[in-house]
């Protein structure tokens, strides 16, 4: 594979950059976690630069209780479970959707939440429950699915709401002061929805430099260079590398749709705990689509995966290879925790691309 000359020059300059001290940066997006590896950009990091993973994988930060409830609803109420493919292999406290499917539960993978509405229309005799998990990039799509079900008078569709928003989580990490982060690589597509300005508090209140970055290899190199420039010159500013997609105010239409359907609520994140205002729940006007209300169940008491350190990982305290189970008891085929199976999970990225 020969790289374009300009990219090659840029990569060489990046790799050769001399840092005056050790620098730790955090990426707040699961897609960045994977893309830094997949594109090889992580392999050419300058000396003294390290990257820690943040809480940016929606499936990873979802508590076991959520999947336990989904499975219990499938069992007790016989609902068809529609989900993004990423959820299938994630271990719940006692099982997984993949295992339940093998044992006869109807679990359908969809690419878009609206496909789950179609599935409900095609199965009028069954209930279809969509597992609504994701950050701000996904929530407007899920809101549109709920609106679509209402417009088309589809009564057998509901969502199990596990949506989260990222800004309060980053604030919680900064408040906890457990990890010393010199700067942040901010998510490109979450920011496409919420806008660059939503992150201003990181620079203004916490005096940390941060850059909104795209996902192609040139974005990753350029964005990291911009962040290093800010760090090295001691400028706590917010910059946008991904100007071709992300606007200062974000996508206002998407925000409007999202908050027409959802309210913000306090919710629990794996490893971090309850973060005020960091979750989304259906507004009372859409209660008929709320699977948690529609299908009462008492899931078995949730159980953590013994030895799994996903929680520490999502707070940036360790990297995947620090987990004693990594690559031994825990592999993508036999995952102990969610961080090993989600395509955006840090353990999955390290396992697939990072083992040298």
């Amino acid at each position, binding site marked *: 594979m020969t790289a*374009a000359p300009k990219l090659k020059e840029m990569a060489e300059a990046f790799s050769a950059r001399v840092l005056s001290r050790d620098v730790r940066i955090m990426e707040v997006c699961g897609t960045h976690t994977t893309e830094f590896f997949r594109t090889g950009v992580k392999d050419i990091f300058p000396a003294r630069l390290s990257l820690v993973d943040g809480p940016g994988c929606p499936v990873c930060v979802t508590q076991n209780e959520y999947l336990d409830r989904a499975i219990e609803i499938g069992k007790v109420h016989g609902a068809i479970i529609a989900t993004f493919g990423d959820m299938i292999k994630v271990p719940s406290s006692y099982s997984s959707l993949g295992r339940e499917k093998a044992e006869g539960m109807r679990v359908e993978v969809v690419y878009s939440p609206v496909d789950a509405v179609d599935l409900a229309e095609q199965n009028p005799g069954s209930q279809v429950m969509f597992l609504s998990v*994701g950050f701000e*990039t*996904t929530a*407007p*799509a899920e809101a549109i699915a709920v609106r679509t079900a209402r417009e088309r008078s589809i009564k057998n569709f509901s969502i199990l709401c596990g949506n989260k928003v990222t800004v309060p989580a980053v604030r919680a990490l900064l408040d906890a002061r457990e990890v010393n982060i010199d700067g942040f690589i901010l998510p490109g597509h979450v920011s496409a929805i919420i806008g660059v300005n939503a992150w201003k508090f990181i620079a203004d209140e916490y005096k940390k430099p941060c850059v909104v970055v795209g*996902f192609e290899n*040139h974005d990753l190199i350029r964005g990291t260079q911009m962040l290093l420039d800010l760090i090295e010159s001691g400028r706590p500013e917010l910059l946008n590398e991904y*100007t071709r997609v992300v606007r200062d105010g974000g*996508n206002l239409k998407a925000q409007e749709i999202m908050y027409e359907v959802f309210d913000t609520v306090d919710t629990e994140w794996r490893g971090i705990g309850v973060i005020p205002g960091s979750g989304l729940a259906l507004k009372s006007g859409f209660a008929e689509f709320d699977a948690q209300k529609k299908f009462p169940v008492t899931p078995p008491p949730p159980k953590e995966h013994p030895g799994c350190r996903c929680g520490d990982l999502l707070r940036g305290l360790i990297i995947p290879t620090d987990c004693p189970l990594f690559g031994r008891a825990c592999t993508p085929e036999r995952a102990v925790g969610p961080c090993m199976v989600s395509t955006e999970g840090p353990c999955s990225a390290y396992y697939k691309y990072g083992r040298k």
Partner: protein
Amino acid sequence: MCLAIPMEIIEIKGHRATASAYGVNRQVDITMTPDVIVGDKVIIHAGFVIEKLDPQAAREIEEAWSQYNAVMDEEELKKQINEC
């Protein structure tokens, strides 16, 4: 759930549109970006257009990185398009 591969809008019917990249066509929903027109380059997530590319900024990147896509594995790109 998705990647950053821009696709081009080639047809619009109401809030549904056809987007294309690398010879792969996808049906997408444009409810979040009602002002897209045929020919716009867009970013897709979970079957929805989440934003359109700023033509000026996209052109600058395209010129600077014209050879970039040529070095990506086309099969890998198609797989990503089909899954997002």
